[in-house]
Each structure stands twice: as C-alpha cells, then as structure tokens.
C-alpha cells in the first residue's frame, strides 16, 4: 500500500505541475504572456473580461480609456484609425453585462495607478431602469481592484490575486480552455479578446454566415422585448430625482473633473428595432427623460470637461435593413443585432468625437437643445414606422 501511495502522490504532483505549465504557456485568458491578434486567439479571454481586464489595463497605462458594457466592448476598437495619435495608447475596459457602478469602480482602479487623459463612457438606457426602492450595491469585481469603494487602498487584493492565479493557472477549466485555445489557433470565426481589450466578435461573423443576420436580430429582439417588459418602468429612487446609476455617472464626472480628464459620455446608436422595442414596451417617455437628466448632469457637473453625445435615433445607420428569414447572403454592415453595433459604426462615432465624420450622425446634447432633438427623433420614428410597417407589425407580434 505504501508503494501505491507513493506512485499516486508522484503522479499527482507531476500532473499538477504539468497542468500549471500548460496553462501558463498557452495562457488561455491572455493574462501572463504577450500575444498577437492575428491568429493567436483567446476565445476564453473574451468570456472572462471581468477576470482579466482589471489586470491587463494596469499593464497598458492607457492615455484613453473606454468604459461601458458589451456594446462598447464590441463597438469601440482601440486600433481604429479614427483615434487621433494623441489618444494612444488606448484600452477598452468595457465589460459585458455591467452597468455604471462597475465603470465607476474600474475608473477609480485605473486612477490609482495612472491618470488617463480622456475617457469614453458608454451609457445604456437599460441600466437606469430601476426599482424605486433600489439600493446601491457593490459588484464582485471590487475585490480585484486597487481601491476599495470608500477610496482606501485595497489591502485584501492579494487574496483575490492568489485566487485568480489559481483559477487561471491551476483549475480544470483553465486546462480545458488551454486545450481548446491550442485547438482553435489560427482558425477563422473564433471568439477573441485583443490585447487592448476589444472583442472583434469573430464568432458572431461565423454564426451570421451559417444562420443569417435575421436569426441573430430575431433572437435578440425576443430577448430584448422580454427584458424591457420585465424592467421596472422607473428612473429614480423613491422620493428623489436620482438613483445609484445616475450617482455613478455624477461620481465619474466629479473625479474626472478633479483630475483634469476629458469625458465623452456616449449614448449608444441602438438599431431602430431596439428603439421600437422601447416604444412597444412603454419605455419611450422614460428614454427621453433619461436623456434629459443625463444632459442636465453632464452640463452641471463637468465644467465643460465632459460632453454628452447622443448617437441614438432613426438615422440611416439605425435604419439599416434586417435581411429576411432564410437569407444568409446579405450582410448587415453596421450591426450584429439591434443592441450591438459593429466596429464600422464605432468608427463613425469615434470620427464624430474627434470632430470629423458625418455631421448628421450624433449630437452633443445640452439642456438647451435636448427637447428639440428629442422631438426630431420622435418625428423620425413616425416616418420609420410608416416606411417599415410590416417589420413593425412583426416586432409587435413578438410581444405575444
């Protein structure tokens, strides 16, 4: 029995060392070793942004920082030609499925190590639809950040770093992900997270080729309809004119002003299908109130160091036609589906932020111009519904 135990223990040790070495060498999450974005894909890094980005951003010391949710992660490419030379280096710190609370904490995290010059902050209407009794809560991610929510040095971070080290080097998932990373090396249509934090959505390209854009739009339209039907139809905490999400935006603006950082707050360019879903689910008035409140806050809190850009509306990008069911040939140029725009549209936004691009696309909102702008979008919406009545009927039928 003693010999058996020795063999068992020795094999266990060798296998463990082998697993850790494999995970370090392959580095499936792109955390330990530099990698190229031309075939050295990190499909599992793309799904682990919350784990890897807080560490990666510290290595980059970016001059320009992108914050937001998945729309910003897949829409704003740090390699885009529209970024001016002075904006380099950039890092896309946007995280899927997160709101302004996470963006705020990540911003504070970066500031603790290095001060960027500009941040592009994507804000999403859905994050601001809250219950009147909503309370401020802190996300899990704070444990791996340099600063605690009360502004102190995070002394417990080493424990999270050890745990993250175990997850990325000594876990069964990491072994399986390493094997998968080796398997897909150099192949087309593989999910990826670039070293600068951008998700190019290669996997969506493959799905679009195989199933057509109609399927992707339809699936997400159904999900969005469900989600907006379920969301509370309310923007502010009970008895106040604010909410944790608005407070987070204000906090970001305040900290940025204190550090002399330019902030470009971006309302995403939702596809017309999603705008119609706002209307169908009785969220449209709140959508407008949300913009008014943002315009007011950005104007009062930033002292000209922040601008609110509204790219939502029935412009020709948002009106891009969704192919019919069964059509796998037609490519949608600017959207993956109604909620997520492609980097091609991201390029148009970045060009506008740099003072170039199409003047009719996007508007810098202020309390003075917001109502006129909202009225214009309403009128564009009426026109859109007249032109695309069959498409709108289909969307409305999905509610059933």
């Amino acid at each position, binding site marked *: *029995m*003693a010999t058996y135990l020795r*063999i*068992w223990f020795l094999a266990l040790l060798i296998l463990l060392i082998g697993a850790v070495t494999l995970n370090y060498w392959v580095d499936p999450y792109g955390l330990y070793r530099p990698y190229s974005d031309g075939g050295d894909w990190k499909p599992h890094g793309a799904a682990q942004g919350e784990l890897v980005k807080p560490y990666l951003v510290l290595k980059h010391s970016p001059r320009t920082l992108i914050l937001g949710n998945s729309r910003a992660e897949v829409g704003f490419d740090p390699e885009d030609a529209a970024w001016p030379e002075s904006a380099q280096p950039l890092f896309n710190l946007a995280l899927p499925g997160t709101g302004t609370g996470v963006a705020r904490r990540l911003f504070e995290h970066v500031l603790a190590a290095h001060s960027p010059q500009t941040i592009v902050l994507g804000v999403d209407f859905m994050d601001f639809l809250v219950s009147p009794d909503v309370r401020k809560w802190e996300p899990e991610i704070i444990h791996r950040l340099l600063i605690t929510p009360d502004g102190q040095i995070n002394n417990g971070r080493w424990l999270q770093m050890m745990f993250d080290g175990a997850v990325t080097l*000594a*876990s*069964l998932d990491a*072994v399986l992900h390493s094997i998968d990373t080796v398997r897909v090396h150099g192949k087309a249509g593989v999910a990826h997270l670039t070293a600068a934090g951008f998700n190019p959505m290669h996997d969506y390209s493959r799905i679009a080729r*195989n199933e057509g854009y109609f399927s992707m739009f339809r699936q997400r339209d159904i999900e969005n309809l469900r989600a907006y039907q379920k969301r509370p139809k309310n923007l502010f905490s009970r008895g106040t004119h604010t909410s944790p999400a608005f407070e987070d935006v204000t906090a970001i603006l305040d900290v940025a002003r204190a550090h002399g950082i330019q902030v470009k707050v971006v309302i995403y360019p939702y596809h017309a299908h999603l705008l119609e879903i706002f209307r169908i689910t009785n969220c449209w008035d709140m959508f407008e109130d949300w913009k008014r409140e943002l315009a007011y806050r950005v104007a009062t809190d930033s002292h000209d160091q922040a601008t609110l850009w509204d790219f939502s509306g029935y412009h020709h990008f948002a009106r891009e036609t969704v192919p019919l069911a069964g059509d796998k040939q037609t490519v949608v140029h600017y959207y993956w589906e109604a909620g997520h725009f492609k980097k091609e549209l991201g390029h148009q936004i970045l060009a506008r932020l740099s003072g170039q691009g199409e003047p009719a696309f996007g508007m810098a909102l202020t309390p003075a111009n917001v109502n006129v702008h909202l009225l214009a979008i309403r009128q564009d919406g009426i026109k859109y519904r007249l032109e695309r009545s069959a498409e709108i009927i289909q969307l409305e039928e999905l509610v059933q």
Partner: protein
Amino acid sequence: MLFNSYSFLLLFLPVTAIIFFRLGTYSRQLAAAWLGATSLFFYGYWNPAYVGLLLVSIFFNYGIGYALAREHNSDRNQRKNFILTVGIIANLLLLGYYKYANFFLDTANRLLDTSWTLQDILLPLGISFFTFTQIAFLVDAWSGKAREYNFIHYLLFVTYFPHLIAGPVLHHKEMIPQFARPETYRFSWDNMTIGLTIFTIGLFKKSVLADGVSTYANLAFHAADTGEKLDLLAAWGGALAYTVQLYFDFSGYSDMAIGLSRMFGIVLPLNFNSPYKATNIIDFWRRWHMTLSRFLRDYLYIPLGGNRKGPMRRQINLMVTMLLGGLWHGASWNFVLWGGLHGLFLAINHGWRSVCKRYFPGLGDTGIWGKLMAWAFTFIAVVVAWVFFRATTLEGALSMLSGMIGLHGISLPAALQSRLGGAADLLESLGIQFSLGGGSRFILTWGWVICLLAIALFLPNTQELMRRHRPGLDFDPAAVTARLEWRSTIVWGLAMAILAVAGVLSLSQATQFLYYQF
C-alpha cells in the same frame, strides 16, 4: 469548512491527522479529544456563533443519556419515559425553532391573513443531522442498547467532522466501539490508502461531475421559477440534469466522508448504493440516503406501528414517515409535497406487490423487458418528484412538469436545423419547432445528462470498486456482481491520480454541497 477546499485539504486535514496519530501513541483520550476539538473548529469555521449551540445540545443530550443509562436496571419505567420525552421534546424544539419557526409563521400568516413576524433566524449548519443523531442515541439509551459514560467519546461521536454537517446519520453502537479500539489511534498505510482512494472518487464525483452539470440544472429551474415556459426537451434536460447533479453531489460528499473517516481508521455506514439502478421505489429507498432511511424506519415508521397493524395502517405509517422525511429536508411545502409523492409511490408499490402476490404470483419474474419497464417507471417517478425537491416555488415546479408532459410544445435549436438536412422537415411536420438561440446549452445539457446517467447506471459504485477492503459498515461483498475492482497497482494508482488532479484543479471553482442546506 468544505471538504473540497484548499484550506481543508492543505491545512486542516494534514494537521489534524498528523497530530492525531502522534497523540495516539501517547494517550488515546488525548487523541480523541484533539479530534473532537478540531471537529468543533471545522464546524465553527463559517459561523463560530453556533459552536455554542452545538455544545449546549451535546451537553444536554449527554446528560439525558447518562440519566437514562443510570435508570437502565431500575423498574421505574415512568421516570425513564419522562426523561426520554423531555430529551426528545427539547431536541425537537431546538430544531423547530431554528429550522421551522419562520415556515410555520409564514403559513399561519397566509391562512389567517395576519402579519406576525419573527427575526430572521440563521439555520445552524447540520442541525438536522446532529439533532437526529442524538435523538437516536436517546432512544437507544432508553431501550438499553446504548450506554455512554465517556464524554470525550460522546463528543466525538456527535461532532466527528467527516459526518457532522451532512451525515451519514450514525448510530451510537456502530461508532463508540470503533473509538474505543486501540488500532484506531495507530497510523495504518492500508487505511490511509483506502481512505484516500474513496475520498478521491468522491471529490471527482462532486467537483467535476456534479458541479459540471449544475449550471444546466440551475438554468432550467431558474427559468421555470421565474415564469419562463420550457418546452419538453428543455424541461426534461433540466430535470435530468438535477437528477444526476444531486446524486453525484450527495454520493460524492458521502464518499468523501467515508474516505476521510477511513484515513482515521473509522469505518462509516454506506449512504448510497446506485439508487438510479432501482427497479421499484421500495428498492430506491434502500439505496438512496440509506442512513436517513434507516433512521426514519427505526425511529419513526416502526414506533408508529410499522406493518404490524394491518395493510391500511402500514400505508398511513408510510405516508406519515415520508411526509416528515420530506419536511426534514427543509422548511418548504415543496419538500412536503416531495415526501408525500414518495409516500404515495411507496403505497402504490406495496399495494401492487400485494396484488401480484395474491392474483399474479408468477409476475415477479418478468425477464429483461419487464425489469426495464419497472426501472423506467421507477426512474421517471423519482425524476418527477425531484422537480418539487429542486424548484423554489410551487408554480416553478408545476411549470416544469407542464413542460415535461409537452404542454409547452417541443422545440430544437435552430442551429441544428441546417445540420439535420431533410430530417428537419420531417420533424417540423411532426410539430417540432426550431427555436432561435440556446444551441450550445441544449447540446451541453444533454451531453452531460447522457454521460452522467451512463456512469450512474452502468459503472460499479464506489463500494463495489472497493469491495475487498471493507468500504462501509454492513456491506456485503458477496452481493457485488461487477467485474471492475480496485487494487493497489500502478495502473490504479495512475488512474486515481488523474481523478485526484481533476478534483484538485476544480477546487478553485468549488461550490457548497447541496445537502449542507438541510
């Protein structure tokens, strides 16, 4: 503290074992005290506040047991009965307060339209297990089967860390003699090897298999509990995923407990014997959570009269036992329904047996197809009952069952449509829809379910593999028909090392055991 955690495996276990065996060479009492103390630390690791409660319960029951033992030879039966009654009521009051107070209050509020409130009571870990263990001890002491004067041994019997939080539910008479044996306190390579092997199998079952499939069970039940209507395949996929998750989670935990205990030279009773291989519900309950079934039989069903008072009374006793067994699992009407369903299944099973015995005496030997049908009926009944066990709301459970009988249609992921070619048209003509999204989830759910069911149904279980090495108390190696058998060879050493590596590498994603909540 979790068995599947770095702190347990790298610190608690080696330190406890090394000091235990060192102390054992000097003083057995000291070594037993050390094991009792470390077990209390193990219990208090999460919430030290309840160590006091556990100790009060132990002191109280030891005192009651001591008093009963002193009365053993006297003829003052009334006094003995009184002491036992006080002991049992006190234990039930403790359990009732911590586990059921809010449940009964909520039910009363609903029925009487009142709004009585009680402060939130945090459920002490393992309270159901240590209460039942001690009630059994008191009953045994009352009947003269148990007598305990050594407090250290009693403390260890209750707190012994391998079983403290989620069982197996132990009998005093099977543990105390083992604590008293001198060999227990001497290190043994054989015990360490066998214990480590059983523990490794359990760790793999829990950390790799149960935790691996849990995602898909959770997604389905969460969807049902939040009002989503699952189609037939999604509902069955979710229900079966939970069926295998629960088995590999709890039997994995039990293997780990048995393996850990064996490292210390103590053999625990078995808790599982391939329950999904059962061909009737009576057989299922002889294979599932065996120590709880034994407890319910000995201390509830038989005292209620068992089968001694006629068939009708037997059915009632069975139903009462199963309803209370359901409630033991948690303060929720879903658990009561689960218990009630099993009570009903058992009543039908007993009724069917009586009918067969009387009118169709030859029906017992029905051949392979008959056995297959019996297995299928049993398995489906068990899966249906698990839906109530897992769903957090009654609506969720009913919605899940509606999906399982096809009331929400049948659909396949649209991604499969193009791969099925002409078969897709045929399926559509049969009313099967192709829905957008969820392709990988569908494939992974069914992939996990098929693999884990195959393991549960066709591979030998842990004690069958370890049959030559006394893997559990009351185990009969002669009843094992499986060929595969563990031996201390290089090949088995390497195979177990692979399972251990997979288990250890899963520790960073470790989750709690499902039975910790009970």
